[in-house]
């Protein structure tokens, strides 16, 4: 495993079956998008984990910073009225 040139990092998203959304499953290195897609197929779908793969350059992802955690997320903590817990949900509605 030589480390002379590190290939770019890619984030991998896999949809396990129709109707569900793509979920983040991990990351890997690859020289370009097409190779990243193939590497993702080889590394993450060996056991029939999915039917669709997305790869995204990790550098293209803008992430929230841990430093911003309080202003970002804390204000939602005491606003219970935002949760739809005050409504009666019909039994037939399984996934809401």
């Amino acid at each position, binding site marked *: *495993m*030589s480390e002379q040139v590190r*290939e770019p990092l890619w984030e991998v998203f896999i949809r396990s079956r129709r109707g569900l959304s793509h979920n983040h499953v991990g990351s*890997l*290195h*690859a*020289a*370009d998008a*097409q*190779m990243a897609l*193939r*590497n993702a197929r*080889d*590394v993450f779908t*060996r056991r029939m984990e999915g039917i669709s793969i997305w790869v995204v350059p990790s550098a293209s992802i803008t992430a929230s910073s841990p430093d911003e955690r309080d202003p970002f997320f804390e204000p939602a903590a005491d606003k219970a009225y935002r949760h739809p817990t005050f409504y009666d949900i019909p039994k037939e509605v399984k996934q809401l």
Partner: protein
Amino acid sequence: MTAVAVDPAAVYTLRHADDCLVLSHRLAQWSSRAPSLEEDVALTNIALDLLGQARALYTRTSELDGTGRSEDAHAFQRDERDFVNCLLVEQENGDFAVTVARQLLFSTYQLETWRALGGSTDRQVAAIAAKAVKEVTYHLDHATQWTLRLGDGTAESHERMRAALEQLWPYTAELFETDAVTDDVVARGVAGDPQRLRAAWDSSVDQVLREATLERPSTSWTPTGGRRGLHTECFGYMLAEMQHLHRAHPGARW
């Protein structure tokens, strides 16, 4: 395997089974040594696909020749002269470019072979081929992607890919040889005509090489013998390594 009266179809399936097993072992030798973790997994995935194809073909061979010989007996209890794989698949891994070139040249051949076998009059062989086509399509895609990137990459990667093709090219002639065995299976509709495969192989390989800015090597040296059990020097060492555990502990399991 020196019996003369054996069904040529059994010899034919054994040749392809041995191709699969030997290349599978060569690729497995990359395990933990590939240029990257991702490539390590990719190469061993291909190795496992080929091992699966080998197993199915050994089983079919034993039905056709009536010996009932087990998969393990085929893989571990035959000597070098009994193996009838082509010389191309036994060639050493070399650098990554050599492994990619070997895979490109062989997977192209294998894909065309499996496609033809999909219409085999031997329905079991046809079923094995139908499953293998999907696997080999991916092997060829993997080899093609790397050939394009190494060939049309840096000066160094281009030179290594060129050298790899030149090194392996002589061994491709053997893939399209005909003999009494191929004549028989082609006549019975068990297999496709090797000469007809040649045209498809040529155009497929040429297209990849052109796109990868690589030249098709030319050679007048065309070593042969693998289909008759006459192998290159490196094969004996590979076989010794592959078989030593089973020979030291016959019937070993885990």
